[in-house]
Each structure stands twice: as C-alpha cells, then as structure tokens.
C-alpha cells in the first residue's frame, strides 16, 4: 500500500553546521527553501524563537538545544538543566501548549512554534498563575531547582485532563524528578490549583498561547 500521495510543493531547508560536512551530499539546493536559514562560516544559524509571546532572534550554533538557547543566549534561566538527556524533567517547557523537554529539542527545529517558559506564566502585574501560588501555599518545593519544570508539567497535567485523582496526578507527574522529594506537596498543589484553573481567566488555554 502506498501512502505517498502527492504532498504539495517541495520545500526544504538546509542549515549547515561547521566544517567537515562537505562529504555529505545535500539533496537539492538551499535556494529551494521557503524560509531558509543559513549558517555562517562558524556553523551559526540566524534563528527566531517565539518565547512567551515575544519573537527573540539570535545567531546560534545549529547544535544548540532549546534549553541552552533559553538559558545561555536569551537570559531565560528559569528552565533548568538537570541531566541534559531527557531523564529528569527540569527543563520542561510548553511548545504549542504541550509539555516537552527542551533539552532534547534543537532550537532550530522549533522556530515558529509557541514556546512558554516559567517566566511567561505570571501576569504582567506580577499576579502569579494559580499553579505557582499553589506551589507556595502547599510548600511544593524545597531547593526550587526542579520547580519551574514541575509547574509547567503540572499545568499541562491539568489541561490534559490527567489530574482526576491523586493516583493519576502521581503517575502523570512522574516525568519530573524532585530530589528534595516534595512529591506529596506537589500533588496537593495541583489539587489546589486545578479548580482555579478551570474557572479563572488567564489560565489553562492561555498558557502556551501568550
């Protein structure tokens, strides 16, 4: 069975890295690209990332993870590096409203997508998102290092409909390690914030869309 039906105009993007790649044949030419991003001689790429509603432009190594782009280049250090290999959840951000691990995403690959980090949750006047407030009220953290990832994961957990019971919350929050082991209080925080997210403005749907 062939599912390769006609797929519209051919568009492709080639973004080079540094020296040493000449041996690999490129398919077609970069000139074909619709929104071509070209690397300079040092392997850097001119990228634009949409973070917390703002377009942020930077020249970054093509190898830069979304996490390192945020932390090392955009001064958004709220997202944390705990393992850099998808095993701890500290780098959790939302891309188009879904929780993902920014350490295992190439920054270059999420241009044009809506990225929300911990810095984008509170309202302009400083009013905290109900989940942020709930983490404070329930003492849902200790050292605070995994907390940005926990909070973004917790908001998604509610929005996905996976916060129906304590057991469900525990399971669907298991992708965020907390070495301080604040887990029971994280569950309590999610239960506190859940009803407020459903009714108060500026909550679930807005996250990731700002």
């Amino acid at each position, binding site marked *: 069975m062939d599912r390769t039906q006609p797929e519209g105009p051919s568009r*492709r993007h*080639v973004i*080079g890295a540094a020296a040493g790649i000449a041996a*690999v044949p490129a398919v*077609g030419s970069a000139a074909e690209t619709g929104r071509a991003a070209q690397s300079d001689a040092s392997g850097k790429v001119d990228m634009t990332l949409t973070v917390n509603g703002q377009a942020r432009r930077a020249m970054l190594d093509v190898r830069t993870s979304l996490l390192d782009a945020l932390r090392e280049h955009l001064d958004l250090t709220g997202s944390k590096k705990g393992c850099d290999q998808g095993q701890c959840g500290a780098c959790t951000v939302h891309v188009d409203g879904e929780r993902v*691990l920014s350490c*295992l995403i*190439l920054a*270059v*690959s999420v241009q044009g997508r809506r990225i929300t980090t911990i810095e984008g949750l509170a309202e302009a006047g400083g009013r905290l998102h109900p989940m942020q407030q709930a983490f404070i009220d329930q003492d849902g953290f200790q050292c605070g290092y995994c907390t940005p990832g926990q909070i973004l994961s917790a908001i998604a957990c509610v929005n996905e409909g996976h916060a129906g019971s304590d057991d469900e919350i525990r399971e669907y929050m298991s992708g965020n390690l907390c070495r301080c082991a604040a887990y029971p209080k994280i569950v309590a925080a999610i239960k506190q914030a859940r009803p407020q997210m459903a009714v108060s403005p500026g909550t679930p749907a807005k996250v990731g869309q700002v």
Partner: protein
Amino acid sequence: MRPFAYDRAETTALAARHPTAQGQTDAKVQFLAGGTTLLDLMKLDVLRPERVVDITPLKARHSGIEVGPDGLRLGGLAAMAAVADHPAVKRDYPAIAEALQLAASPQLRNMATLGGNVLQRTRCPYYRDPSWAACNKRTPGSGCAAIGGFNRQHAVLGVSERCIAQYPGDFAVALAALDAEVELVGPGGARRISILDLHTGSDRPHIEHSLRPGEVIVGFRVPAAPWARRSTYLKIRDRQSYEFAIASAAVALDLDGGVVRHARIGLGGMAYKPWRAKAAEAALVGKPLTEDTATAAARLALEGAVGHGHNDYKVELGRRTVVRALLAASATEV
C-alpha cells in the same frame, strides 16, 4: 555532538532522497523526528551524523489514528501520547494503549513519535558510553563489555556471544503480540513488513533493523482480531513509573467459555528484540486458562533463555510476568 547539517524534509519523497542508515551507529545521515533517542545519543557522542534530516513536517500527513473494521492504523509520526490517550485504542486495543502509556514520561510521550519509538536504541550502558572500548554494536568486532560486566538489565532471550543488549521499548512488544505490520515508504516506493521482521538479530549487533536507506516508517497496521480487546500489557520495573521494563508481557486472548481459542504473547524487558512466544501460545490453545496452563506456557515462553549473572533472575521473573499477564487478561471483562 559533532557539527552537522540540518535539513527539513516536507515530504516522504524528499526524505527518501537521503541515504539514511537509521539502525547503524556509524550512519552519516539520520532522520530526526521526536529527537528523544537521536539527540540523546548524539550528545553522548555515540551517534555522529553529518546530516540530520528533520522529518517532523511529515506529521501533517502521517500522524492519524484510525480504528476501523479491518483493524487499527496508526500514523508513523503520531505522538505516543496521542495514541495512548485515544478512547477507541484504549477500548479495542488496550495492550497498545497501555504499552504506550506506561512508557517514558508524559513529556517524552508528547515528543516521541511511534516510528521513532520502535527504533529506540538499547539502554545498554556499555553501548551508551563510548569510553567503553568493547561494544560490538558501536564498533563491530570490539567485543561485549556487558558479558562479564554489570548486566542486570540485559536480555536473556535472543542474545548471542556478540551482544546481550536489551530492546528497551514497550509499544513494539504490544505490536509484536498483535501481529502488526510496519508501513514503510522509501526510494523504492512503499512496502509493508511484519513488526517481527523490523528488528534484526544479535548475530550482527551493529545493524539494528531492516530499514533501507531513505525509508521512513509512515504507519502501523494492527489487524482486527477477536483477541485484541482482551489484551493487556504488563510492565515490571523497579520503580513505579518513568522506567524501562525489567520484564514485560503483552498478551491477548480469545476465550471460548474459559477455553483458549487463540493466544498471543509478546515479551519485553528481557529480549534482544521485540519477542513473540509462539510455542507458548500454541500450548494454550484448546485448554482452559488456569494457573497450571499459564505456568506451562510461561515455561515454554522462556525456553532457551540465557542469563549472564546479574540478569539470571529475569528467566524466573519473565515466567511469572507471563503468568500474571495471562491471568489478568483472562479475568478482563470485555
């Protein structure tokens, strides 16, 4: 992570123009989908592609979930989370939904695609760290540090003196149990193969699967069958969540008043590749599903298993996992 050229392929036809060798450690060109295996192994300097072809644009066409009279069809670029949460999949193919839901974490399930997931590399620590010289999977002919090393997580089925790596995934184990086929599109057009023929054996550990250069997994087909609804995926692990299996079983039963008409058993967490226990299935047919018949089948399922010290326990644990899964499936209300 070595420098690479980044490319995006908007169509399978364009993707097919890239000479990928997904299943080989020394591949110069790699497809990037969810990135959860590829970027991890690139950071560890295990994989060093010179060109990375981002195929996420293919999601637009190849991420559907269709449950029909002929069976289940899943897009190769569907996110694991989307399938795990799909009501019809949960109802009609519970082993599929459960295997996906019990895998990884919510974040990783949002990122990872089905096609990428079945191709996930082994978690063998000696493979994942190039500072270990001996690894036939990374460097053919270099030996196997896991044999004689710390091998508690390693496979007991399908292993060889060249490699005892464990296939780490869950979803492919459920696919194996349910006779699934993999839909491929590549330079030579489209083809379908059995999931059991996707992964290759431990005699040539440096080659992981039978994909041809430029081929993309665009879908999976699970045939409709009377046993699909009475299916389950049991995953045993040291912690409750976010961990790879130390043993798992996907089982499906077609029962006639307590007597087995058909049985399907897939094994994970203990085998070199997604494993199908056909002898055990045959032994159950025509018999009532009881503790005794399940135990006899489990013994057959683990026949030929070989431990290497730390993982010796998997032989007995594997048997018990099969028994528990069979009894659970037989007790399911469908």
